[in-house]
């Protein structure tokens, strides 16, 4: 269980990262927190010829809380984002989701961008990105481009980032309604394990408790985490009573195509998808109403 030999470069700046990626291309992997990549290398599931370490680049670690958006550098540590009260106030779903990500020791080292770039379909942060419509800023030697989460995640453990591109920062939209609530929930064999199915929801209500905006999604129920904007749009204008929420959750679960494995059958996962989506929506609704 030791990694195969590789060449190592500690990049000091983003331009150095781009130069290294341009030179080594497909043979190089970016090393951020290493909480997924290093175990995969130990198990020899991946054998990159080069590792480009991006842990010592200050410009990738920033956090900026603005009016409509929280911006995080790709290498911001999960624990730093989790503890940040200003982020929790603007995009509460991030802290709620991070509580489910691994354990204290892995969140102390793991990064926001690393989790997104790894693109595990069961992982929490990619689901939050899908639900909120986060935007990924990608940098290469030939410039930058921005991808919506929906375009960024292309399949299980796969993204649309090219091999010469580095995820630079992530924009997490903040909703402006005062009465906004969100929730994250999942079922896993043990807390901290990969989710069998995960659900995230965010709801905004007006003074009468009527839904003005809704977003929700499911992880572990397909090749990528999925958001359901069309079903969520149907919730707008309703009072989000139990039957309306159950209908939406059921409609979403019906659209999923989960796989079967040792831990759970596809049928059970689809069942969980409906139950957890309803739970997340109800919890988000209660939080929105109580504000």
């Amino acid at each position, binding site marked *: 269980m030791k990694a195969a030999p590789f060449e190592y470069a500690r990049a000091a700046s983003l331009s150095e990262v781009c130069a290294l990626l341009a030179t080594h291309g497909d043979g190089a992997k970016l090393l951020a927190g290493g*909480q997924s990549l*290093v175990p995969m290398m130990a198990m020899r599931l991946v054998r990159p010829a080069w590792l480009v370490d991006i842990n*010592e680049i200050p410009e990738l670690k920033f956090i900026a809380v603005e009016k409509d958006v929280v911006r995080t550098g790709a290498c911001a540590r999960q624990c730093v984002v989790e503890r940040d009260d200003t982020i929790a106030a603007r995009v509460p779903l991030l802290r709620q989701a991070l509580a489910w990500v691994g354990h204290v020791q892995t969140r102390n080292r793991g990064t926001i961008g690393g989790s997104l770039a790894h693109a595990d379909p069961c992982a929490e942060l990619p689901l939050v990105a899908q639900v909120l419509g986060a935007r990924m800023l990608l940098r290469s030697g030939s410039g930058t481009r921005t991808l919506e989460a929906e375009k960024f995640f292309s399949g299980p453990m796969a993204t649309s980032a090219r091999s010469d591109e580095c995820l630079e920062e992530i924009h997490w939209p903040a909703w402006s309604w005062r009465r906004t609530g969100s929730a994250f929930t999942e079922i896993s064999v043990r807390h901290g394990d990969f989710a069998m199915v995960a659900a995230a929801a965010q709801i905004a209500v007006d003074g009468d408790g009527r839904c003005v905006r809704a977003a929700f999604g499911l992880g572990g129920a397909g090749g990528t985490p999925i958001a359901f904007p069309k079903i969520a749009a149907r919730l707008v204008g309703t009072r989000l009573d139990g039957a309306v929420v159950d209908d939406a959750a059921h409609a979403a679960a019906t659209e999923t195509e989960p796989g079967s494995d040792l831990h759970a059958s596809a049928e059970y996962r689809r069942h969980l998808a409906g139950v957890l989506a309803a739970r997340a929506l109800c919890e988000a609704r209660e939080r929105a109403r109580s504000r």
Partner: protein
Amino acid sequence: MSGTLHKISIEVNGKLRNAQVPARLSLVDWLREDLCLTGTHIGCEHGVCGACSVMLDGEPVRSCLMYAVQGHGHRVTTVEGLAKPDGSMSVLQDSFCETHGLQCGYCTPGMLIASQGLLNTNPNPTEAQIRDAIGGNLCRCTGYQQIVEAVQLAAERKAKEAK
């Protein structure tokens, strides 16, 4: 095969250690094999069991999920570094003995690092907070109860000391 050696300079338990290491050498292997700090245990080598936990710049991390070369310029504390300067056991270590917070001892260095990490930032944790802090560490002997009690006892003792 990459034979490239990388110069590193890491503060381990308060002492600056310089070395030349291949990139694939994990931090835990460097600590154990090269520095002979065998208090840190290797369990699963892929980030699941928590036995190899050490503090990196004061925060618990898994030393099997870092390459030694990545520690360059940072500060590492192993379980050896938790003891008092005269080598006697810390309050937390002694509390583990007191409550029988270990049997085979394999998970103990990781448990000590994880719970010391908690106590450093939260000197009076609830039981739920203790269980969350050691949630990434597997113990196959104790059923965790006595470990939780050890951390509670250490917190009480520290609070008394402070009075």
